[in-house]
């Protein structure tokens, strides 16, 4: 199909779909006043039933926990696929030089960049842990905290350069964190079954509302998600940054 034909097919499809979209949009309930029975039911009950104050976490880890299990495995599959596609195509040694464009000199990072990255890298790692651990009380959770922790790793890369960063990032540990996180989530579900309850039933003591350790089994699942997301993103960073290495003479690729 040539580019021109493809564009005409697209415009034709737009002609068919746009009136339907307008028709549906005009008949939606007034914006900001939708009936939201499912969300309202959770807002009304979750604090009483599950002793948590963050409704989004209650949905993610309890009321729709099995969806999050599926998402964990999607994450695992995507990271595994990326790793399989990229790993082994570049030399492993840490001594590799960064990729260079011919004729452009590579300057070392300035002291200001190194200082700022060292200060904020550590602060962002702590902030990510805080967000991940306070999933049940205040906005946050394993997904957000995991991504923040992984972005702290990127700041360490900016400050320390590739070699220093790879000295800290052990791929085998990151792989283990990624896999162990998804496994922990699944094991939390099977533990409920071993106790004679349906899959992912929250059978642990629920604790007090507004306490960091409230929510019972949700805490375990949250740790699993945080491990899987932080490990998964860090594995992706390692694999993609490895692609910027240039091969040196005498190295096996």
């Amino acid at each position, binding site marked *: 199909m040539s580019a021109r034909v493809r564009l005409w097919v697209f415009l034709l499809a737009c002609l068919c779909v746009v009136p339907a979209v307008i028709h549906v949009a005009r008949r939606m309930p007034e*914006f900001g006043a*939708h009936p939201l029975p499912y969300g309202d039911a959770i*807002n009304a009950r979750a*604090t009483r039933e599950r002793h948590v104050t*963050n*409704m989004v976490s209650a949905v993610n880890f309890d009321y729709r926990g099995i969806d999050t299990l599926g998402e964990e495995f999607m994450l695992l599959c995507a990271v595994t696929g*990326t790793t399989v596609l*990229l790993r082994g195509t570049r030399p492993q040694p840490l001594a590799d030089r960064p990729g260079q464009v011919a004729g452009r000199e590579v300057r070392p990072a300035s002291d200001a960049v190194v200082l700022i990255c060292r200060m904020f890298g550590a602060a962002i790692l702590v902030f990510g842990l805080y967000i991940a651990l306070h999933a049940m009380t205040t906005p946050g959770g394993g997904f957000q905290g995991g991504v923040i922790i992984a972005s702290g790793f990127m700041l360490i890369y900016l400050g320390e350069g590739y070699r220093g960063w790879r000295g800290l990032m052990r791929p085998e540990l990151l792989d283990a964190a990624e896999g162990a996180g998804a496994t922990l989530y699944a094991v939390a579900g099977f533990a409920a079954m071993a106790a004679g309850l349906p899959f992912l039933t929250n059978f642990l003591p629920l604790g007090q509302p507004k306490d960091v350790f409230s929510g019972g089994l949700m805490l375990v699942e949250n740790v699993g998600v945080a491990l899987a997301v932080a490990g*998964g993103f860090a594995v*992706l960073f390692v694999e993609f940054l490895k692609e910027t290495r240039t091969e040196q003479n005498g190295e096996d690729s």
Partner: protein
Amino acid sequence: MSEAVSLLPWAVAAWLLGIGLYGIVTSRNYIHLIGCLSVVQSATYVLLLGVGFRHGAGPPIFYDHPPGTPAVDPVVQALVLTDIVIGATVTALLLALVLQLHRRRGTIDPHEVRPFGP
């Protein structure tokens, strides 16, 4: 006025979907195409958060105001949350495919890569 405001979120979602699909259809570079796919995906964020919005309601976190105060829908927020994380990793997977394509075929132009081609 009120109807225009009421239609705005759906119009934004439809526009993001349309402009992203247009980019995918006319793309001459797989990295640009993956960027367009992310634009299509962000249409779902706007749509879901628009569905869950409620005038004058607070966040669905009952830490410093008691349960029962009006709050927006937590279900769509949970959906968007996982959507964003999965979208980022799937983008990484697609970019890895592009790297392999470039290594094997020396091109990242969708027009030059024919299905079942040489």
